[in-house]
């Protein structure tokens, strides 16, 4: 084998290596784009220069540092297929995280005379996290011995999920210190709910609020 042949083989080898590396890179880019889209991000918008995007999000309306506000707690209506917002006066702070924790406690305590509870008795809040992109993560823990009594249906799960999400994403709970809560991710004992118990609703992704579940009541106009 002469020198030219060896050089040819080396060239072919290097070209193949380069081709394979390009393919791997392309594959990684495709995976990245798919993941961004799965999370609801627009990959094309991300590629734009920073100047094309608004420099800062629109300023939030000024909020008092401390005080009370009218907050809507979304319980189930007696007809069993809608949420009934109940107005409560709540102490709020500048921290969305704290306000949401208080609202969750109030949801767990249950409604007044008109509504039906949405929080399953088997669950209690273990931890609450608020991520920078406005995703709130609620980690529930399951009370021992309650699994057998668990009531399951799409409707009852949806009332729980949207009762929590619609409550936590309302503007009255948003503090200026924290990002605005836009969607809620559910965990049970640190895992996606489907990993511990069968659920009809797909809780692998965070849930955005849906006002179509809310009944129109005199209270519902207060906040949204």
């Amino acid at each position, binding site marked *: 084998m002469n020198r030219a042949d060896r050089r040819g083989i080396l060239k072919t080898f290097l070209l193949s290596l380069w081709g394979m590396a390009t393919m791997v890179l392309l594959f990684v880019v495709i995976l990245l784009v*798919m993941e*961004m*889209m*799965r*999370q*609801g*991000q*627009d*990959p*094309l918008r991300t590629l734009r220069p920073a100047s094309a995007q608004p420099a800062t999000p629109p300023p939030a309306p000024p909020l008092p540092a401390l005080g009370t506000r009218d907050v809507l707690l979304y319980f*189930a209506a*007696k*007809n*069993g*297929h*809608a949420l009934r917002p109940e107005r409560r006066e709540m102490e709020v702070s500048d921290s969305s995280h704290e306000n949401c924790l208080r609202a969750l406690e109030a949801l767990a305590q249950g409604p007044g005379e008109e509504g*039906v*509870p949405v929080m399953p008795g088997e669950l209690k809040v273990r931890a609450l996290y608020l991520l920078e992109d406005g995703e709130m993560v609620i980690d529930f823990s399951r009370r021992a011995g309650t699994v057998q009594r668990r*009531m*399951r*249906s*799409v*409707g*009852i799960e*949806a009332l729980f999920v949207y009762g929590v999400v619609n409550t936590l994403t309302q503007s009255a709970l948003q503090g200026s210190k924290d990002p605005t809560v836009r969607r809620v991710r559910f965990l049970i004992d640190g895992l996606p709910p*489907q990993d511990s118990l*069968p*659920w*009809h*609703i*797909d809780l*692998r*992704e965070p*849930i955005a609020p*849906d006002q*179509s*579940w809310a009944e129109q009541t005199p209270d519902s106009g207060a906040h949204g």
Partner: protein
Amino acid sequence: MRLRAVDVQGVPHVSLPEFIDQCGGYCRVDPARVSADLFGRSVVVGVNDTKVYSSRESFALAHPVIRHRGEVLIAVDDLDVLLAQGFAARIKRPGVVPEGRETGQEPLPDIPDEALSPGRRLTVSTESTDIPAPEPLNTRRVGTGAAAIQTVIIDPGHGGSDPGYVSAAGLSEKDLSLAVALALRRILKETTVLKSYLTRSDDSTVSPRDRSNLARRVRGDLFVSIHAAVSMSETAEGFGIYYAPSTARAEVMSRIRRRRPGLFFTNTDRDNHARSMRAARALETSIAAASGVSEHWVRGVPVAILRDAGMPGVLVEVGHLTNPAETALLESRSQQEKIARGIAEGIAAMVGDVAMPGVQP
């Protein structure tokens, strides 16, 4: 195995999907072709064509496969060729009998045992000999959008070790959903030419993954999951229909497509969402009319089984097992039948006047 034969211009034909079905395979009928899977092999047969395409070789039938009165028919004489060259199987005797008589006591020794249970026989009976030639395909209207439904997946919720909710009176969600699902399948079979598959036909445990896998494998066009509602309020009543809203990915694709037309050719999630919503509305109307239930609602909810099925789909909660009066009604066979008929009518209304003659909307 029983097959009804019809004479078309003097040549006895049988329904190709029915034949494949009875051999243990499955078939998908599109306007211009039929895809058949049997014994682990797949073939595609053109409608109004003699050509058969398989993964191994292409071959021709003696007579074209035709569409007649909503059914895709194959000449009885071609069954041997189709089985031999398409699926490496053989029928010793096709079982064509003199007009008006039925025989078929001949076994089918060369069809694998797992495909035919012991004692099953191929019986072909003939029907009218005075049938006009089939219409050419291009004169038919072809279904689009929500109307392009040919295969319905019926999914009775829960089952086996998972009873779902059990009412105070002892009615379990798994039994109720199965009863409605079986009635729905029977009604669809009797009144339409739609293909239907059950994710379970008895009290067996089937995982959600297996349900969605089946739906994808048989390439269903509509997934109908049947469940019961429960509520913390004893007075809650009525039926609800749920469809899966668009995923975040579909919304992003949709936004990009608006700005860069042509970048994505399809947006399956978004299309499924739109079709599912139409299906939910159609079923709401028809079930309310058939069952006489006045309280009903339609909502978009990310239901896991509907998302995983990867096709338009709805989940129907047929009534509340937490309401004693409604449970008593749901327990009655006549109410189960009414609900099933309502669902079938909703599906038929979606199919409407297109694609599948023989469907009675």
